């Protein structure tokens, strides 16, 4: 690799490699009339070429997202206003039914129950994950090197485990007859009524197991991201705050938290999004022998509607609206604060 000579500051230029001028709005008209005959110089043509080039660079990614996500999204939205069931699968044209699918879904108390459950599950899991993750990140920054390394390795192991392997082990841990959790609760801890407890039959107990698994899986990400943010807080600032008489608690809330706020924002936003759309964990636990109707969250409910495409489409649209509603506040703030 050739070493770039950084010893010569100044704007790049010269005949050898004319840098493209910063192409901003005033050049817009030259974009429409590229390379007019009266301006044969390369400089005049350059902005147009680089502009077109830029869009070519964006094209593959934009096209892939449009095909894999955009088109299904539009299609789902359109279908949610149609009657599209099994008959249409066999070639009958779909009929427009306006908002009927939505009114049918939203007048069903069960839909509201699923929405309420999902929002509650999402908030409980996001709050628990954030609280535990932040606490462990702060602990990581406070302890000595050996303890920190130990903690990091443990977190990484949990984070790196594929979700299906994780789900498989947790089913075994919570197994009714030979599961080690029932044994731990009954033998060393003396709760003998837990010896052969079926964790997945009761909805609350089912959600407890799901929460344990989701939080266990999500915490390491929060820990590492927040810890990386904590490292960026300058030591001088903390010392200055200490000299000014702030105790550890005050230093944390008045210095550390405001400084890592951008990281906390992003992480909290991602947790809410991920916990609202949780599917795999719920689906696998349901397959392990839970009553599905009592334990559906949005993802599994949509999956269970799969045979009625329009209903599934309407429900998915409702889910999207819910996600946007829950995250609008965050997104607005992020867009405002961030220089994109």
């Amino acid at each position, binding site marked *: 690799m050739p070493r*770039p000579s950084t010893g010569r500051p100044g704007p790049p230029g010269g005949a050898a490699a004319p840098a493209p001028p910063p192409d901003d709005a005033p050049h817009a008209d030259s974009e429409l009339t590229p390379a007019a005959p009266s301006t044969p110089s390369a400089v005049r043509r350059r902005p147009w070429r680089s502009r077109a080039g830029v869009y070519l660079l964006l094209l593959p990614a934009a096209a892939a997202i449009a095909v894999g996500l955009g088109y299904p999204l539009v299609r789902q939205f359109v279908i949610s206003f149609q009657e599209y069931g099994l008959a249409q699968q066999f070639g009958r044209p779909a009929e427009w039914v306006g908002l009927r699918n939505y009114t049918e879904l939203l007048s069903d108390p069960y839909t509201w129950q699923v929405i309420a459950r999902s929002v509650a599950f999402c908030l409980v899991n996001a709050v628990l994950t954030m609280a535990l993750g932040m606490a462990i990140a702060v602990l990581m920054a406070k302890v000595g090197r050996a303890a920190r390394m130990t903690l990091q390795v443990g977190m990484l192991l949990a984070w790196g485990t594929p979700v299906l392997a994780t789900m498989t082990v947790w089913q075994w841990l919570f197994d009714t007859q030979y599961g080690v959790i029932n044994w731990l609760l009954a033998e060393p801890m003396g709760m003998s009524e837990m010896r052969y407890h079926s964790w997945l039959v009761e909805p609350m107990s089912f959600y407890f197991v799901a929460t344990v698994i989701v939080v266990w899986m999500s915490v390491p990400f929060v820990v590492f991201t927040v810890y990386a943010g904590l490292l960026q807080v300058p030591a001088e600032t903390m010392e200055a705050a200490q000299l000014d008489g702030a105790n550890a608690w005050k230093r944390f809330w008045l210095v550390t938290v405001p400084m890592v706020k951008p990281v906390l924002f992003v992480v909290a936003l991602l947790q809410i999004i991920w916990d609202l759309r949780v599917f795999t964990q719920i689906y696998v636990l349901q397959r392990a022998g839970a009553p599905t109707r009592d334990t559906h969250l949005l993802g599994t409910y949509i999956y269970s509607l799969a045979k009625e495409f329009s209903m599934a489409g309407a429900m998915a649209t409702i889910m999207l609206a819910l996600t946007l509603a829950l995250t609008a506040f965050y997104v607005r703030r992020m867009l405002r604060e961030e220089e994109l």
Partner: protein
Amino acid sequence: VSNPTRTAAANAPQAVVGRWLLGALAVAICLVWVFPIYWMINSAFLPTNRLRTPTPTFFPVDGTLSNFRRVFGDPTFFASFRVSLATTGLTLVAAILFAFVAALAVSRFRFRGRKSFVVAILVVQMIPAEGLFISQYQMLDGWRLVNTVVGLSIVYVAAILPFTIWMLRGFVSGVPIELEEAAMVDGLSRTGAFFRVTFPLLAPGLVASGVYGFLQAWNEYTLALVVMTDPAQRTLPLWLQGLVEANRATDWGVVMAGATLIAIPVILFFLFVQNKMTAGLVAGAVKG
């Protein structure tokens, strides 16, 4: 200049005890998080008669390899391995290539629509894919791509791209444009300067995004469940779920051996590159 009173305080007996307590707490938390993984490996080495006992066996002393032998004797394991490998490979090549050029455009050029593109990338990540799978299935079905590696890869690429662009954009912005400009002053073309100066510095970022994409595609379950309905086209996570459903309550040993075989290579891979991924995320999210 360190504060003398602080050093004295750190050496005081209570402070030392406090440090030890915090250290012990850290180790205890680590144990809680590691235990499920330990238990998976432990059980994988135990024969069924030692798993089905009133008191669990905590250490696989004179364990057995028979569970692993049974997994390796299962031809569907290797078939699924091949499907997973093909899907992940195809997804990665496309996603990294597309994301790289897009990240380049976003962080190295100023053009109309740039900000909208970045906002779109951010917003797209909020679309709950778990609500889209029905129409994704229908789309692939219409193109006769259900139960094909190509079909699954199409939806994977779209799912992975936004975050990969977001992450790579942080890495590209992290390489000062002045380096490129200096090389251009020295007579390299813009393209030459990019490939000879910036590109080598981006290698860690590309590796990190590649690993992110690999983990996402390799471990993905939901879309695979919807798209790969034919048992012959199962990816490894689907294969493992099939193994669980066939052996649940009868033979946890073989299930744990399957889970261990799937998990260990991924965990090792992950340990190897995790810090670069976190750095990329923080850079993409915070630095702009």
